[in-house]
């Protein structure tokens, strides 16, 4: 058939070698760049790891359990900061998960007509759009003056609980945790809402048909059915909270020692440590900071990969 091709017909005209080469080259080029974009994650990990190597060799895993961060002595351990990262993130989740899921329920049910509901959904999303540094500024001048009397009251009346055992001095772990809660709330609300909206309508109708009230349906049908989606959203939010830098740096007080478990005391997180020290660091300190960055990278990576898998599994199922 090919041998009898009529070359005068445009239908049978073969493309020139050059055209085909360019066309194949285009496809291969896009593939190569897509692979490069995918590999960027590994490149970041390797580069940060390479720069952290001197500190890794010197301090080993002891870096994770030592709470001494002394630039003068060249001794570096990030326990204080790892503790700060975990505690602030935990406070943030404690506040943001119930409220975020509550918002998600309110905005996925038909309490409001869509004309009013859609703008509210958008407003909640806008919370995530406000730059972190603006939350920090607002926190310094508005939130901390507002929180301080509450902190003083907690310390005076409930000071026997280790959580409130120190007198607050303006900024502190509790303020950072609260701002983190505000910042991750939209993520939890948006993903939980998607998860609940995606629950098949038959489940809801069946529950109503059996005589369940709206809230019995929500607690016994919708929340369990949407659980994996909500869990994925919470984990994504956790990853965001652990890596969040500016607002935390501006509100946590940046103390490099822990002397109590009080959430009213000042502290620091891995990210605030990096934000405070990187610009003026030199020598082994840069390497130690890179080690800390690698630890933070590892923590968020684990959380994000798990979240990604959970969310993906959930979206495949529905």
């Amino acid at each position: 058939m090919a041998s009898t091709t009529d070359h005068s017909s445009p239908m049978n005209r073969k493309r020139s070698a050059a055209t085909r080469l360019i066309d194949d080259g285009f496809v291969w080029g896009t593939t190569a760049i897509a692979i490069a974009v995918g590999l960027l994650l590994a490149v970041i990990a390797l580069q940060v790891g390479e720069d952290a190597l001197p500190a890794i060799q010197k301090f080993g895993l002891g870096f994770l359990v030592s709470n001494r961060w002394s630039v003068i002595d060249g001794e570096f351990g990030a326990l204080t900061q790892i503790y700060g990262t975990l505690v602030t993130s935990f406070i943030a989740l404690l506040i943001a998960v119930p409220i975020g899921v509550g918002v998600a329920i309110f905005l996925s049910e038909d309490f409001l007509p869509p004309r009013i509901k859609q703008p509210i959904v958008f407003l909640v999303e806008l919370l995530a759009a406000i730059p972190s540094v603006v939350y920090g500024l607002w926190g310094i001048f508005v939130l901390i003056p507002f929180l301080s009397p509450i902190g003083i009251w907690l310390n005076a009346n409930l000071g026997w609980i280790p959580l409130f055992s120190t007198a607050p001095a303006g900024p502190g772990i509790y303020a950072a945790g609260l701002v983190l809660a505000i910042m991750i709330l939209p993520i939890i609300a948006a993903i939980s809402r998607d998860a609940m909206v995606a629950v098949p309508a038959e489940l809801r109708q069946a529950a109503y048909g059996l005589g369940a009230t709206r809230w019995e349906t929500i607690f016994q049908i919708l929340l369990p059915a949407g659980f994996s989606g909500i869990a994925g959203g919470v984990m994504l939010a956790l990853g965001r909270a652990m890596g969040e830098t500016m607002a935390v740096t501006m509100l946590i007080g940046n103390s490099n020692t822990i002397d109590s478990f009080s959430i009213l005391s000042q502290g620091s997180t891995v990210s605030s440590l990096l934000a405070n020290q990187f610009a003026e660091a030199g020598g082994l300190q840069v390497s130690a900071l890179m080690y800390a960055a690698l630890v933070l990278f590892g923590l968020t990576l684990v959380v994000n990969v798990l979240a990604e898998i959970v969310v993906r599994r959930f979206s495949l199922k529905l």
Partner: protein
Amino acid sequence: MPAPDFAAARGPRSLNRSPTSPRTLFASAMTVLSVLFTLLALIPLVAVLAYVVVNGLPRLDIAAFTQLPPAPGLRGGGFGNALLGTLLTVVIAAAISIPFGVVAAIYLSEFGRDTRLAEWVNFFTNVLSGVPSIVIGAFAYAVVVLTTGTFSAVAGGVALAILMLPTIVRTAAEALEAVPNDFRQAAIGLGATRLQTTLKIVLPAAVPAILTGIMLAIARAAGETAPVLFTASFSRYWNTTVWQPTATLSRLVFDFATAPYASQQQLAWTGSLVLVALVLVTSILSRLVTQRRRK
């Protein structure tokens, strides 16, 4: 067989639930609670916006946009150099991330759809979007600042580019996938190559949606502080090249928020107002654009 008399069996109760039954009370209480939670969630948004507008407006004058930051203790001045610096870093970031992002999206949507490779690229891009921005700053510091020996707008641009990349890849891929397959089939049927189909048919159809994604990514990047903190760093002067420490608006807000001088704190609020306005306007615009397209 006579029909069972449900009404008689249940006595005087009707199908309506009694408003005082524990189940109804619980449901009403939960409804009130969820309304309260939603209001509670909106309080910070309203509070932040109100304070930023009220505190930022007094210094929203021409000098703020054109002059250099005031020396400590002096009045007046502005953040002209920081505005220029933000523009510089963002333009550099866009110049790097848009080509890579859109081309990667072309692969994901046009040639790699439903392949294992595309799935992996998607996965890693999503995970990349979760990497803390301060870690990306550390990476840019290692790659650009340490090798060139200076903080620079380029270093800040590289950090922001990595930050923007996942957003651009995702929105561009979604935009391309939304182009109807008829377009591709028609083009191939007319004898177009894959290159011609992509560049002349599919890409132009997706451009408005891709631009929306890029706009959002740029607005978010302009407000980011952590990645430029120790890459672009800060400067009190105008930039003459892109290879020198560069002030950005977000870094200026950070520095001046913690400064003890009233005039600098003033500028921090006004700078915040500019950043917030930028993000809000692009978010609302892009939402209007997507809504119109859906209709």
